């Protein structure tokens, strides 16, 4: 019986995550279209081109995270029923999405650092230049990329555990 409130709470969290995802996607689509429109202006097409590249990376990262919400909803619904083969499959798929997200977020961090290259003096050391380029926004994205990497590893570890549990359950069923 305790699994039902847990399942509901996790589903509520997933629904909130989906709402947050929708808001972010709408915001970034708007910025992306603005950057695309700016490309038509010959005077500032270079700056808008760079902005469009960054916005497209954010959009791709958001799109890569979307299937995870779907799988999360399904896994939250299975609370209390134990790990089975389908849970393992879902966790593995979430892990793959997480890996794609990690790569895209790492690219985004590199892109943002590249965009901030003109902010600093080129005569100072590389480490100091990097430090000056790391504003709050870049640091947050870097933390997000690291979190995605660790989360991906955790999802793969969980999927292996789920596989093991599913095999043990199948053996027990056969024994009985």
């Amino acid at each position, binding site marked *: 019986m305790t699994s039902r409130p*847990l399942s*509901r709470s996790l589903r*509520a969290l997933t629904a909130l995550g989906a709402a947050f995802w929708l808001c972010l996607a709408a915001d970034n689509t708007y910025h992306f279209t603005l950057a695309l429109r700016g490309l038509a202006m010959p005077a500032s097409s270079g700056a808008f081109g760079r902005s469009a590249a960054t916005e497209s990376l954010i959009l791709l990262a958001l799109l890569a995270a979307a299937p995870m919400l779907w799988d999360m909803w399904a896994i939250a619904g299975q609370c209390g029923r134990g790990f089975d083969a389908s849970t393992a499959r879902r966790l593995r798929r979430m892990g793959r999405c997480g890996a794609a997200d990690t790569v895209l977020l790492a690219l985004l961090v590199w892109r943002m650092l590249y965009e901030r290259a003109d902010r600093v003096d080129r005569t100072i050391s590389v480490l100091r230049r990097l430090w000056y380029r790391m504003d*709050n926004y870049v640091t947050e994205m870097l*933390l997000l990329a690291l979190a995605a990497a660790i989360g991906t590893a*955790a999802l793969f570890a*969980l999927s*292996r555990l789920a596989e093991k549990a599913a095999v043990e359950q199948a053996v027990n069923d056969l024994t009985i």
Partner: protein
Amino acid sequence: MELKKLSWLLRALLVLIGLALAMRLRLAVDDLVVSFRLLSDPYDAALHRRGLVFHLFCCLAVVGPFPALAVTWGVFRQVGLGRGFYQEKRLGTLARLAGLETALLAAADVMMLSFRVDRLGGGFLWGLPRMLDGTMLLWLGLTLGCAALTGAALALSRAAGRAAALLEENDLTV
């Protein structure tokens, strides 16, 4: 082995969350200091006082998750060890801390809504979407998320308690 790795990975995630919160705390403290300095401004004194109270709530709301992170560290350290009673206590504490955080966030939400009351000029139905701007929606989402986490921690605490009781019963039977 797999569970040990999972435990370490989950704790690494907690460290990252802690770092992100520390960044937010720095910004919140900056805002608090600015609003404290604004108190000496004689114009709009009432507004500045309200601003100070709001930023104080914001600071408290950012500090609030740190004890919860410390308790969650303890929960994640025991992943795979199956010590039900310890987990029940920790998860109960976590639920209480999450409940407190929800209350803090709800208070900040109410203050933010009160700042936006003048947007209701054209009637409640027309004014409400104007009140619920991006920042307001984000804070409301955070509050709801925290409430859902409180529910999850409570449910997990009960499940851990039941598991511990079953484990003890089995031990006695053996």
